[in-house]
């Protein structure tokens, strides 16, 4: 039968989770930073009274509305995936992970959702201060949400504060130890700064695009609002990209202690050695258990991971085959993708400082083009980073204690294949359309008296005559023929 040609239920469930969670995280990776950026913009507007900040705020508020909606609906899917596809995992880890996720809903999701309406539609309806408070609460909600979900994810990497009951369930013993498990603090920092950089790259790219495209005004200046975006994004890159490298290094040291197999896969090391080289590029070969065509820098591997020239680094061969990452090349290459992009971000930030110091930040087309090209880089780096850490901890869901193969639901492969096909089609259609609208929004230059999410009328302040956003007659004739 046709069904027999399907991959195993386990592989289908894994692929479905990888697909839905990767797609989902693209949106929070962007909106976490964007919410905070909006709070800063509104704060600057209230503080300085400069209208251009309000225009930039409204410009990005429209983007936020679309991106956040996509994050919400794709996130709803995630909260059910644990039960639909990983019910054995849910049953055993529920006592520990369920409460952590329940706290995410209670402290973050309601906060975001509750004040999102005020943030999007309340300007001019509530006072400015109250509106600013709503924006700050939404931004805070995104940070709290990250706190809980990364705590849960970290616990799966470094389980702590539990005992195992007679029926195999994980029983909570110490909530403090569970929530603040060993890998959580740096994972949180690393992920949140990643989100901020992702936003900075997108905002910077949109600003740079309009600086490249627009004519100067009578005074010879470029679009003021695009300059604000670009300048703020480059400050973020200059300040945070180097810090991110530092957090990444700490993350690596943590992983070396708790998940040495993963680090060995990231580095492409098969043999345990002292004074290990840093393999820049190569082809990890799982059959032959070696990394072919390796380009190496001697001793640097030990120096980075052990902070000494002859530090010992364990190779993959030191671990039984059934405890090694199941896809070493994926871990190896996704790690290099992340680090490579991170390096480019640091370079972008450094060059921006130099140009800014010379007063030429907006003047060099090559630099603006570089910033445009870096637009999606944050999303790629964040995705690559997650692939590194999640593919690297296979074949376990709870590290060292529960295998992925033992976590899956008793659902037949045809059901999983059907749902996977549906998810793929729907996600590409719906989120494809959403991303297309985002690009349409990016394509409009930020203008004085920028519209809010529902055109001038929804957010107009007193005294401005509303103009229809689109030809009203054409739209009125758009009645569906039903």
């Amino acid at each position, binding site marked *: 039968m046709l069904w027999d040609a399907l991959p195993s239920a386990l592989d289908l469930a894994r692929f479905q989770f990888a697909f839905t969670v990767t797609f989902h995280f693209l949106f929070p990776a962007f909106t976490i930073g964007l919410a905070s950026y909006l709070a800063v913009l509104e704060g600057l507007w209230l503080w300085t009274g400069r209208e251009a900040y309000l225009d930039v705020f409204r410009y990005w508020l429209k983007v936020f509305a679309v991106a956040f909606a996509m994050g*919400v609906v794709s996130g709803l899917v995630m909260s059910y995936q644990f039960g639909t596809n990983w019910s054995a995992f*849910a049953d055993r880890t529920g006592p520990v992970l369920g409460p952590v996720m329940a706290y995410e809903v209670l402290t973050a999701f*309601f906060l975001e959702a509750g004040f999102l309406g005020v943030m999007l539609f309340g300007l001019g309806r509530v006072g400015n201060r109250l509106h600013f408070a709503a924006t700050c609460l939404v931004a805070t909600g995104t940070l709290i949400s990250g706190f809980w979900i990364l705590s849960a994810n970290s616990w799966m990497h470094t389980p702590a504060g539990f005992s195992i009951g007679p029926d195999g369930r994980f029983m*909570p013993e110490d909530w403090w130890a569970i929530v603040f498990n060993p890998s959580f603090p740096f994972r949180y920092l690393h992920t949140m700064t990643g989100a901020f950089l992702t936003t900075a790259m997108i905002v910077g790219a949109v600003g740079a695009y309009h600086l490249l495209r627009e004519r100067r005004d009578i005074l010879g200046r470029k679009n003021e609002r695009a300059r604000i975006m670009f300048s703020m994004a480059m400050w973020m890159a200059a300040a945070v990209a180097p810090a991110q490298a530092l957090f990444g290094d700490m993350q690596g040291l943590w992983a070396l202690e708790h998940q040495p197999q993963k680090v060995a896969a990231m580095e492409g090391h098969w043999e345990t050695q002292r004074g290990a080289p840093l393999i820049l590029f190569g082809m990890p070969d799982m059959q032959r258990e070696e990394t072919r065509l390796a380009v190496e820098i001697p001793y640097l591997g030990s120096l980075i991971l052990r902070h000494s020239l002859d530090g010992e680094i364990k190779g993959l061969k030191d671990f039984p085959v059934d405890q090694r990452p199941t896809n070493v090349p994926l871990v190896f290459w996704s790690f290099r993708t992340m680090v490579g992009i991170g390096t480019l971000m640091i370079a972008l930030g450094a060059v921006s400082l130099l140009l800014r110091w010379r007063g030429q930040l907006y003047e060099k087309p090559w630099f603006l083009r570089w910033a445009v090209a870096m637009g999606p880089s944050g999303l790629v780096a964040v995705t690559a980073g997650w692939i590194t850490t999640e593919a690297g901890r296979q074949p376990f869901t709870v590290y060292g204690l529960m295998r992925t193969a033992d976590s899956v639901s008793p659902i037949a492969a045809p059901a999983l294949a059907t749902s996977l096909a549906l998810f793929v089609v729907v996600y590409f259609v*719906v989120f494809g359309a959403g991303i297309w609208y985002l690009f349409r929004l990016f394509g409009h230059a930020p203008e004085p008296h920028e519209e809010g999410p529902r055109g001038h009328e929804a957010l107009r302040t007193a005294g401005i005559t509303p103009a229809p956003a689109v030809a009203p007659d054409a739209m009125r004739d758009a009645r569906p023929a039903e």
Partner: protein
Amino acid sequence: MSAETVATIWAFIIAFAVFLYVCMDGFDLGLGILFPWVSGRDERDLAVNTVAPVWDGNETWLVLGGAGLFGVFPLAYATILPALYMPLILMLLGLIFRGVSFEMRFRSETPTQLLWWDRAFSGGSYVAAFFQGVALGALVQGVRVEDRAYAGGWWDWLSPFSVLTGVALLAGYGLLGACWLVWKTEGGLQEQSRKLARVFSFLTLGFIGLVSLIMPFLMPEFRARWFDFPAILLALPVPVLVVVLAWRMFRALDESGRAALARTEPTPPGHVLWEDGLPFLCALGLFFLAYTGLGISMWPLIVPPEITIWDAAAPRSSQVFVLVGAAFLIPIILAYTGYTYWLFRGKIQPGKGYH
């Protein structure tokens, strides 16, 4: 507090969250269900604008239901979700279409795009509502569990009864949506909504009756709850109250219609007309009674026919850990949710977006 007491409290909290979800997303989804009979662009914009600031918060109660089940009744989470695999996946996909359409409708650049997002909004609402009803029916008719895991196939959920509950929920959500519009709009759209409310209330009452007649024959436990003495003393007021409320709702719809005829001026912004809100409150009352009836049948089962809330409960430590937060946070959530509703109160003003 003993572990049993905590689990009982949690059963009520989760039932409360699910009920709030049903009410609040019920009228959101109802708008999509009514879309085929609300065809003008302006009317559709108005209808969607009545819920745009609040729909996301409404949907969050569904997430709380899911996460709460995971945290407090993990065995229920781990058996119900695989058992209802297909209906839940389809519900989620429906909610995706519905959720993004809120934004996309307003980003549409051509009439064709708008037409497709309207279809996504309406179609997504139909699919989500229908499969929520199917999921409910499939849960009530029983889930096969062996050795702490779901032991049935991936089509077990499909039965005449689950299809019936699916259609019934469509009708019920349509009623909530129509009554919501009676409250939040005026003029032509309100008049149209009043007509729709009457039609959907007949459908809803019919389905409530039909489901109530079938329920006792699904499981002997359910039958005992409804027909044995003295349990019947507790259960009997429910159907009686349904009739009383239904009568009150029809009267309220008539009164609202007469009041609308008598009004010559549009209602000022932010002014709440409680007489127009009464049909909505009655519809919520009907939902509450139906939900209570369901609770009477199922108590204390969480996964019929065998698993009780106490079987499914997480260890006491997990339950208490979340309970401490929930006791403190849920009132705060209700307060700021109420505040948002208050902020966007009154009749939606035509052509003014959110004012």
